[in-house]
């Protein structure tokens, strides 16, 4: 074989390998889409989210998950939120899932959001079963969201859930500061069958934990 033939013979597998490497890289950097908070007024924004008992689509249709409503009203399966810096964020979460107990009762409390309301009424503690929490440890924010009753007449089984199904509405406000990225998560160990209840959706980005990007 001539040198040219050998060079081609080497370059072709290398090119294929490079293609595999590039494809793997793009596979690794997949990220659930970012949903930006909608602006209410200068320095005040809104985020609306829901928590459901099973997402219905994707690799894990039976997993619990958060969804976020984007500006066109579509419920997006993501946990990547974006808010501006130095602003006040009003958050509304519709909780459609049944509840279970927390491992650590500290999270039964509402922390860091003194104006939190549950179905319109102010609350600071919930002692019955909890569906999920929205917790940003770095901001000292933690809001428990009660589970719907076990005897509820009209539970939602698969996302996205319309407001006509049984749910609880939790609303609260928190402030952001400088540009950074916070991680947030749920603290209810509902990863059924996993050790300590924290496997599966609890350990997977885009389901029960996510990031809050604060952009300047």
């Amino acid at each position, binding site marked *: 074989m001539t040198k040219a033939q050998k060079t081609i013979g080497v370059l072709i597998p290398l090119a294929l390998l490079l293609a595999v490497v590039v494809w793997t890289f793009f596979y690794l950097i997949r990220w659930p889409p970012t949903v930006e908070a909608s602006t209410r007024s200068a320095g005040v924004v809104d985020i609306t989210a829901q928590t459901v008992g099973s997402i219905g689509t994707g690799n894990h249709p039976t997993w619990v998950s958060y969804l976020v409503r984007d500006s066109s009203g579509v419920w997006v399966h993501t946990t990547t939120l974006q808010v501006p810096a130095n602003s006040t964020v009003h958050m509304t979460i519709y909780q459609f899932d049944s509840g279970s*107990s927390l*491992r650590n009762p500290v999270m039964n409390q509402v922390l860091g959001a003194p104006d939190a309301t549950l179905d319109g009424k102010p609350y600071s503690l919930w*002692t019955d079963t909890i569906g999920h929490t929205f917790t940003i*440890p770095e901001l000292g924010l933690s809001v428990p969201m009660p589970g719907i009753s076990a005897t509820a007449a009209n539970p939602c089984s698969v996302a996205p859930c319309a407001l006509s199904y049984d749910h609880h509405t939790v609303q609260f406000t928190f402030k952001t500061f400088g540009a950074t990225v916070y991680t947030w998560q749920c603290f209810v160990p509902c990863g059924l069958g996993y050790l300590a209840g924290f496997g599966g959706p609890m350990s997977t980005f885009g389901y029960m934990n996510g990031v809050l990007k604060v952009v300047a």
Partner: protein
Amino acid sequence: MSPASSPSNVNRFHLTRILVVWLVLSLILTPLVYFVWGPNMPPGDMANNAKDQQFDNTVLSTVATPVVLFIWVYLGYALIFFRRKDASDEEDGPPIKGHLGFQVGWVGLTTVIVLSLFVFGTYELVGPNGAGTGSGSSPIWTPAGYSGVAKYNKLFQVQVIGQQWRWTFRYPAYQGVETTQLVIPEGVQIQFNTTSLDVIHSFWAYELGVKADAVPGVNNIAFAVAERPGTFQIRCAELCGPLHGAMSSVGVVVSPTAFNTWIAGQLVLHGEVIPLLPPYAPTYLPQSDGGLYDPGQDPLGPDLTLPSPAP
């Protein structure tokens, strides 16, 4: 062969040059390491353990400096002076297969250094009550006032609870209140009781010089005295899941009076949760005596639910 180039003279020639260069460099750098770098070494001097770790780092660096310098000087010297003259030089070197004195001296010297470091390390571990490292549930080098029996233990107790993925802290002397921020009084001997609710974490309070693994079912005890007010970084030092990197917070050291004010405020802030918390216990598992944290829905485990809601 003239006397000037006899093997023993050649040996002495090279040896002298190497030793002189090494000695000069060591005499300059070693004191610099000890006296100039030493007081600035991590992790600082905010707590007694941190000071000990700093001192350890300083001593180890000081001992390491001449050792490293020797090898570097030697390798550099060999690269310059022990090379063949040019590419056509096919001669072999002198057939030196060993030198008993050198070998014995080297092994002997390394043994002495290593044994001294061992003695030093043990001393630095025992003296400062375990040097801030997690010493298990029955520590043997303990400060005055410690007792394995809870009611005789006079030390300030803080329980560090690791869970996926945040730290919380309980103060048994203050109704077992559980807080999300760690605040400790300065100048007081603190006993950190570290445990976990799920997987293995590691409580690393950097400026306090404390590192204790939070292991489920185990009470890992570490001691520290914070010597001045300030803040310290808390990190998790054992991979505990995807958000391991996010499991950090900031602890504060305040004066004892400020601490009393703070803890009173915490009792108010977390007051309504205290009845929901399990009784304070060294570990939290279904089988342990005392407290019980619900480990979540476990198809193979006992049925565990919260107590019925307060009316």
